[in-house]
């Protein structure tokens, strides 16, 4: 797909208010999916987020994903990175000052908490304003899959993710969202063959979450120049 075509698809998928996902659901980003009850961020999550120290790694127990329960039900925890203290205390955006001394997934989310703009109300955004407010997002993945914002984000409470089952997940539980399609990867991830473990091979098993490595809107790892090559002369094979 060339750049122009990709650009067109991105425009259509992000800007158009009505799109069909692959399963044929009609999804509107300005309305909640039909039949889904509205959910507030639960008090436990809010309390946990408030207790997190900036710059400190904390964890949350992984809950079973939708279709898959994990090998041997082995316990593991998902790492939550809160923002480093030097990551900035506030950022001026238009007339609104966004506090980004972030919680939990905050280090990766530049405009968290979402309520700084959205303020718990229905997302009201003219097309142009989406591009303005979220111009750091490169919506490659939505374009590839025919998804729109509300395919994954709950329109009435943007701090929650919405799953195909109608359940809601917090941003910390993003792997439940990914698992809906990438169930093989999530199986490998939960078992330890995909992703990264932190803290060591022994003791408490803490792993990084999907979005710690993959930008959810553009998940592919970008190509780059590698570290310097070894100084080798070709002999028989590549000996020492």
């Amino acid at each position: 797909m060339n750049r122009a075509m990709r650009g067109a698809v991105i425009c259509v998928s992000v800007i158009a208010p009505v799109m069909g996902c692959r399963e044929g659901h009609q999804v509107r980003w300005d309305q909640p999916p039909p039949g889904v009850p509205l959910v507030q961020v639960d008090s436990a999550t809010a309390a946990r987020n408030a207790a997190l120290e900036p710059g400190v790694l904390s964890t949350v127990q992984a809950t079973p994903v939708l279709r898959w329960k994990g090998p041997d039900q082995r316990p593991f925890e998902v790492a939550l990175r809160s923002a480093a203290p030097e990551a900035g205390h506030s950022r001026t955006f238009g007339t609104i000052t966004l506090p980004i001394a972030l919680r939990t997934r905050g280090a990766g989310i530049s405009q968290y908490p979402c309520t700084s703009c959205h303020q718990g109300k229905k997302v009201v955004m003219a097309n142009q304003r989406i591009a303005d407010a979220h111009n750091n997002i490169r919506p490659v993945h939505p374009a590839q899959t025919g998804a729109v914002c509300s395919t994954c984000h709950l329109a009435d409470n943007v701090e929650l993710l919405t799953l195909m089952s109608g359940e809601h997940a917090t941003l910390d539980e993003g792997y439940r969202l990914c698992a809906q399609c990438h169930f093989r990867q999530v199986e490998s991830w939960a078992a330890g063959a995909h992703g990264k473990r932190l803290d060591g091979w022994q003791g408490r098993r803490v792993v990084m979450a999907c979005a710690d490595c993959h930008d959810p809107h553009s998940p592919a790892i970008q190509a780059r120049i590698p570290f310097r090559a070894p100084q080798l002369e070709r002999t028989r094979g590549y000996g020492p």
Partner: protein
Amino acid sequence: MSDDSAPARPATADDGGILQKPMDRRGALGFLAGGLAAGASAISACSPLNAATPKEREIRLLEWEEFTQKHYRRMTEAERAETIERLERLAKLRDNEDVTIDTTDAQPGVLFGYAFNISKCQGFRSCVEACINENNLDRHADTQYIRIFEMEDGVVDLDSADPTYQHDVPAEGHFYLGTQCFQCANPPCVPVCPVGATWQEPDGIVVIDYDWCVGCRACMAACPYWARRFNWDAPEVPPEEVNPNQHYLGNRARHKGCVEKCTFCIHRTRKGRLPACVEACPTGARVFGNLLDPNSEIRWILANKHLFRLKEELATEPRFWYFSD
């Protein structure tokens, strides 16, 4: 081995009186060295008595003590502690480095294994960079333990693969396969050593006593994976870049003329941490764990993934598996 673990012999009157003096080993050697220098001017150039400053004198005395140092596996606890103290003091005197050299033994019930995901590796060489910094590798000769081979899709052929690529990665139509020391269960490098300076530890790590190595390089010729590196010159590491967290069998300072290699970051992994390459990998292609723990990640990979090992026909039994998604 029973007499190896016996405590050092207490001083008696039979020792000619020298050992009865309140004198430690270092002082005794200085005493002997001084006597030698007084008696034989032929070696006076090496004598600590000729050192220009007290610091140089101490350095030379400590260097002399290396000649009486035992093989690491034959040292008593006290001798180990003494050796470590001497090495740490030498690092302080020579380069003003405050290093900590530990001698942590293998944990019981642990056998290290490594798995490398060839579907995930993108060839960024972040592992190589982390390895150089972690293991105090020679910056001048640009020693690298890890080698990442760029291979064309569909075939594993080390001879046609390119470990020296330097372009944007991943390249179209290629995959990346990393090699390092595989800590083989049947290591061909160990029996060929004429002095027993390299051996396999109970947790599977093949280690080298750098002070016992004579630099004959037989192990390098024996290794079918090109995993060992030789110090043709004294390794150079800028003092500010030295990793002070060291292990006697791992990343402590090497000297000219000894062989070194990857030890799965023995100073980290024996304390439950991950090797530096695993920690640095930006794609999660590297998995490390305990093969004896049925709940470990590596055991799940061995049970559930498609695997291969390099040059399996040689029966070296590497504890390093390649797998794909």
